């Protein structure tokens, strides 16, 4: 006897409430599938676009040791992209379709990567702040309800915390260096602090996805809670380095047990989301260029594989 839609939906939600994972072969509401394709692919795109601002400094890294570490880090991000695209593919969409959505500008990726990396210190700041903020989101996602996504997150989180330590260490070296290096680090913190806070998304009262996301355990904490967690964890790290967070309203609130902080410029946030950030066009152009110029290579690889298959088939006959 066929189950009714209501029964299926109830069983599905019961599973989630019981803390069980949903797997690709399980029944799921169409909205759940669509939401996950959107979120996982956005996440994958962020990893891939995120390679660009950091890759930008590989050829200019100040020492061989730093160069190798940065190159390995950017490569990790490509790996993250790969796991995540594979997770999205389990929901019935192809990697080509996902790339097409990214390249056409239809799909979103984390806006933080539309900011430029202008100095070596930015490589430190990106690791420390951007990977740092990403981890807070991602640790939460290791317990999300969709199995393939949660498992990809477990692998990714390990590497992200390594990236964050590496970024902090780059910044520390600058903070302990010459006057010029300290200024470089401070200038970088000044530029990356606010965009990092924006990574957690709009304020709770303006966030549209939160309720369903909570129900499906895509989110277990709200944007504002996560943002606060990031600030509370990062302020002492900046103090330890002797760097100043560019927020004159920032101060410890004994009663709340949290740092109070100044207003975020949400106009800037929405502008960057809409495509007006400093590097939106460059990032998309770079992705499109790589994709278009790779077209003949992918075709050749496919044609060669076909011919080989045909040859071995002929041999077998």
């Amino acid at each position, binding site marked *: 006897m066929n189950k009714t839609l209501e029964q299926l939906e109830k069983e599905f939600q019961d599973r989630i409430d019981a803390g069980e994972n949903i797997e690709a072969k399980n029944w799921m509401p169409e909205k759940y599938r669509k939401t996950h394709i959107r979120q996982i692919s956005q996440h994958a795109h962020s990893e*891939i676009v995120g*390679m*660009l601002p950091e*890759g930008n400094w*590989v*050829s*200019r*890294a*100040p*020492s*061989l*040791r*730093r*160069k*190798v570490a940065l*190159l*390995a880090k*950017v*490569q990790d991000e*490509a*790996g993250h*992209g*790969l796991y995540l*695209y594979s997770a999205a593919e389990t929901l019935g969409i192809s990697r080509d379709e996902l790339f097409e959505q990214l390249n056409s500008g239809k799909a979103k990726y984390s806006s933080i990567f539309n900011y430029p990396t202008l100095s*070596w210190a930015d490589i430190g700041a990106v690791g420390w702040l951007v990977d740092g903020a990403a981890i807070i989101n991602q640790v939460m996602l290791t317990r999300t309800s969709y199995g393939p996504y949660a498992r990809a997150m477990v692998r990714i989180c390990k590497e992200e915390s390594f990236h964050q330590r590496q970024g902090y260490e*780059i910044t520390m*070296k600058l903070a302990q*260096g*010459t006057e*010029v*290096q300290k200024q470089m680090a401070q200038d970088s913190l000044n530029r990356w602090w606010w965009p990092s806070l924006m990574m957690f998304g709009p304020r709770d009262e303006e966030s549209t996805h939160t309720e369903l996301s909570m129900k499906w355990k895509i989110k277990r904490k709200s944007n504002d809670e996560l943002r606060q967690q990031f600030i509370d964890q990062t302020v002492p790290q900046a103090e330890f380095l002797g760097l100043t967070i560019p927020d004159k309203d920032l101060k410890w609130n004994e009663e709340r047990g949290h740092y109070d902080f100044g207003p975020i410029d949400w106009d800037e946030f929405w502008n960057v989301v809409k495509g007006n950030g400093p590097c939106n066009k460059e990032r998309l152009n*770079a992705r499109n*260029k*790589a994709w278009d*110029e*790779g*077209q*003949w*290579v*992918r*075709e*050749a*690889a*496919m*044609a*060669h594989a076909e*011919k080989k298959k045909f040859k071995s088939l002929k041999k077998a006959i």
Partner: protein
Amino acid sequence: MAELNKENLYQYLLQLGDNVMILGHRLSELCGHGPSLETDIALTNISLDLFGQTRSYFQYAASIKGDDSTEDKIAFLRFPNEYRNTILVEQPNTDFAYVITRQFLFDQYHLLLLEKLVDSSDETIAAIANKSIKEVSYHVRFSSEWMKRLGDGTEESNAKIQEALNYLYPYAGELLKTSPIEELAAGAGYGIDPDILTDSYYQNVNQVLEEATIKIPEGKWSHSGGKNGIHSEHLGFILSDLQYMQRTYPDMAW
């Protein structure tokens, strides 16, 4: 005599290190821009291997040089005519066919070189060669497979790989042309005269090209000069990138 030998050993290490560093640099420029995620990751892996080898050679060179020499001073603070790499590895990432062909022509030489250097009279060189040989065997497989894929793939890919080979083939000869530094190194037993690799090199290269249905360019003439510090115009731009931080912010720790 001992002094002369020490200086030549240092120069020989520079040559070994510069080839892998400059090629590693070219590959690192592609990180994030590859034709697919898988090839992006694979090319970055090769770049990482090459930089790892660079560090081994330069750390050893710094210890030979003594004083306050370091791997980074050697990598970043020489004048252009003090770099000893061949001109092949400076050639730009014109397109994926050029990237693969450059890699293929170098890898085939690199593996033969390392197979000899494992018997170097210098223990450190032998150890570096020993460690690198596994990595480079993989590089040879990777670039040879891609030569075949592109040669045998589509009409377009065949035309592109043929064009790249026609352009880069005249740069391969320099790998095998004996420089004064190599002559001394071979005489002393810690290095080899690359001329002895010539037959195996062209045999291995041609075998892959034939399988890939790529025509072997005619003519034996070859560019040279890199090993003696006379480079192509490309090196200056590579060094502007490579040396940027060390030149702009001298004497700082990173």
